[in-house]
């Protein structure tokens, strides 16, 4: 009978994961500021399984510029930089199939369990994977 279940539920913990907070805060940016300053805490997310296909990690040292990943990527995430013979990935478009990881002949690409990627800017630093921060600044078209 459903009512037995209902009354049991009254005293049980709800199944909802209260991540990041149980209720909408008065000010989201305020809360985030507090969390950054260490004054407030948020509930942690449910731990992800080890081999979750999250954000792709890129080891530019190993990369030989074969463009195999560019060929197999279904979402056209990967841009080939011809001068450096390296790649740049736009994570905002990634579908997390990790086919590029399978295709890479030199293991320059790997999956990480990092999945908290929400951002307001598609081209924010967190959402672009490329050689190294220093190299990125040089390549960024700031003079435009």
């Amino acid at each position: 009978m459903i009512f037995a279940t209902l009354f049991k539920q009254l005293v049980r913990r709800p199944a909802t994961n209260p991540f990041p907070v149980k209720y909408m805060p008065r000010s989201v940016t305020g809360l985030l500021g507090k969390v950054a300053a260490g004054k407030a805490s948020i509930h942690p997310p449910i731990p992800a399984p080890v081999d979750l296909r999250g954000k792709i990690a890129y080891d530019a040292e190993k990369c030989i510029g074969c463009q195999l990943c560019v060929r197999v990527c279904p979402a056209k995430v990967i841009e080939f930089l011809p001068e450096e013979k390296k790649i740049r990935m736009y994570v905002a478009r990634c579908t997390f199939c990790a086919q590029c990881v399978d295709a890479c002949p030199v293991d320059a690409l790997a999956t990480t369990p990092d999945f908290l990627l929400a951002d307001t800017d598609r081209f924010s630093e967190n959402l672009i994977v490329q050689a190294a921060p220093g190299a990125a600044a040089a390549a960024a078209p700031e003079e435009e």
Partner: protein
Amino acid sequence: MTVSVGNAVWQGLIILLGGGLLGLVYKGFDRKLAAQMQGRIGPPLRQPFFDVVKLMVKENIVPDHAVGWLFNLMPVISLAAVATILFYLPLGGYAPLLGGYGDLVLILYLLAVPALAMMVGGFAASSPYASVGAQREMVMLMSYEFPLAIALVGLAWRLSTILPAGSSVFSLGVLAANPLWGLVGPLGIVGLALLMLALLVVTPAELSKIPFDIPEAETEIAGGILAEYSGRNLALFYLSDAVKTVVMGALVVALFIPYGLSGLAGLTGAAGAALDVVFFLVKLFVVVFVSVIVVRVGFARLKVNQVARLFWLPVTAFSFLGLLLLAVDRVI
């Protein structure tokens, strides 16, 4: 009983405000407990207040083809009608404010007004969803009014046979002051229980809650009667629904469980009155919990013909049986 006009206005305002607040608080409990029973966290208790404020500041849209004045008038009428009932309800040990100016029959009429107002508003919106919703509301009204009337009239009639002739048995104050449970025999108690059951079944229908939410039926007719309402008008309907919850709960409490604790605890004066008010709120909560919250999470929505059949056959039969038992109890 002489009440000065100034006093009456003050008390009236307090009752209106209190009724509205209480309604919203119960709505908050309703959502929270329903969510808990469904394994969710649910909104915070103060969410209904946020909702009303939000709706109040939103734009009030009147559809192009709607009959504007009717469409805008109906939410006001609906809220005014249920708010008026508040003045006829005994709160804890207090007698109703307007106890001397109207009775149970008036309450019965006033209870039908919000449903009628929603119906007229639905037709005035001239949207197919609202029209279907209004038709369904009409069928609902015809179905549950009959057992409701039987239950109320049955109680008053039985009381008239006990109290001295000339007592105003239809006054809710008198009914609440003389609980019938102690005044009738065993058969009468069974009859009373049946009437109470009928009233508890009518309550969710009166409030258009699942399984009787067919006039609004979100997944079928997209909110039905309320489909075209927005902003302030929707807020008024929302408030009138909240107040109606309190009214229906208080009605059941006044008719069937009007007992106070002050006598039992030996408290008098302000402390006793406060205890009675708190106890009244607890009783109200229990009634709303049993007849609205639990029912609404435990059933699927019925269809309009199933609702009509349910109220015309089993519920009416129950209330008739209750009435019959009360009558038999009087004879023996």
